[in-house]
């Protein structure tokens, strides 16, 4: 065991954290509202859209994320190439920063996961809550923002936490898109002297710290949000 390398590479791995977090945050910013809206289409059985949403969810849940990455990472350049050639746009598609692909891939998969999370959370809220809101003169929009969503959020939070942790973990697959995140950075450092054991130990520790911190923060927030439920317990 090369302890000197172990220590140095820990900071190399740590320097990949901002990229991993950036990808996670951007993916969630897209996936949370989109997932919620699509969950509403599923609950209210909006024609066509809710069937498409169902197929979309089934695809994402049914295929490994690495294969989703392969597909998106190899199809988007193809599509862009065709479009750019058709309109004679001079643009080198191989110069696109891989982080854009990462945003698309992880937003794509997180949205599907969150549709299911919100769908099951919304289905636990009684219809009477909406009726009561209507009966005191709230509009449907007000009823959702003030009554339904705050309640559904508390129900959904543990699952949103799991989805977030899984998302952070999934960014480790960014290597397939040459995304310089935690895993890739440490691995590259290890390539020089074949110090793979040390490098992966470092990566392991960084994810452990990162994910347990995120879990802790979610737990704190959950406690804060569900004060009306704690009273019951």
């Amino acid at each position, binding site marked *: *065991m090369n302890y000197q390398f172990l220590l140095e590479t820990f900071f190399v791995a740590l320097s990949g954290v901002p990229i991993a977090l950036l990808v996670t945050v951007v993916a969630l910013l897209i996936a949370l509202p989109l997932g919620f809206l699509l969950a509403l289409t599923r609950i209210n059985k909006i024609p066509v859209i809710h069937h498409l949403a169902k197929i979309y969810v*089934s*695809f994402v*849940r*049914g*295929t*490994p*994320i*690495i*294969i*989703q990455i*392969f*597909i998106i990472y*190899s*199809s988007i350049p*193809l599509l862009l*190439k*065709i479009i750019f050639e058709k309109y004679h746009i001079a643009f080198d598609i191989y110069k696109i920063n891989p982080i854009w692909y990462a945003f698309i891939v992880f937003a794509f998969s997180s949205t599907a996961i969150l549709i299911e999370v919100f769908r099951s959370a919304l289905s636990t809220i009684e219809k009477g809550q909406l009726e009561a809101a209507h009966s005191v003169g709230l509009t449907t929009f007000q009823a959702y923002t003030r009554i339904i969503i705050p309640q559904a959020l508390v129900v959904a939070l543990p699952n949103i936490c799991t989805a977030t*942790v899984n998302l952070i*973990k*999934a960014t*480790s*697959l960014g290597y397939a898109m040459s995304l310089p995140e935690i*895993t890739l950075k440490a691995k590259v450092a290890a390539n020089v002297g074949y110090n*793979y*054991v040390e490098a*992966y*130990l470092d*990566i*392991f520790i960084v*994810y*452990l710290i*990162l*994910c*347990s911190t995120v*879990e802790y923060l979610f737990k704190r927030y959950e406690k804060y949000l569900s004060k009306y439920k704690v009273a019951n317990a």
Partner: protein
Amino acid sequence: MDKYFDATYIWNAIPVLLPFLKITFLVAGSSIILGTLFGLLLAAAKLSSVKWLQKLANLYTTIMRCTPSIVLLFLVYYGVPALAENFGLNLHSIDTAIFVVVTFTLQFAAIMSEVIRSAYLAIPKGQFEAAVSVGLTPFQAYRRIMFPQALVVALPNFGNGMIALLQEGALAYTIGLIDIVGKANLIIASNINAHALEVYIALAIIYWVLSIIIEKIFTILEKIFGKGKKTLETT
């Protein structure tokens, strides 16, 4: 268009890939069996009254939950032989599949320990007490009364765990296992990286169909095992 994308490559790739499902199934199946056994032990530890055992099992689950599969895979692949070397063992020449099975056994056990624990807790204590009160031994009570009921509760989560394992298993190619993903990469390499997209789509179709089949099987199983539960409730 057909210069870049040719759908016939998808249909040509599927029959080439399918035989390699055997490897995928073998690795996943072994991990599921071993992982469930280890998960049972972990669940027992979590439910035991021994504080440090509980803590240890919970710590293990947290660590597994926070570790990406690919990191665990490489940690096992590089770490276990390095560790064994200290004891004078040479593990460098053993089959890659072993490392894959070890990795996913460790991971699946963490998932299963939670599935088993929550299923066990979902069964009212009175069931066990009633069983013992009519003269069953504790072991008989667990086997004949508690286990069948807990199974129904655990079934959907077990199914989800299996699908998750199958998908995480797709990463085994990274340490050189030639399962369907590994084979797909070989096909692509032999095409000098052309038409990679079609081969990946073929892979996605195979996985998608597989997941849907597993889901359906579990829905049927739930119906079969759930039957007893319903008649119990209504009588």
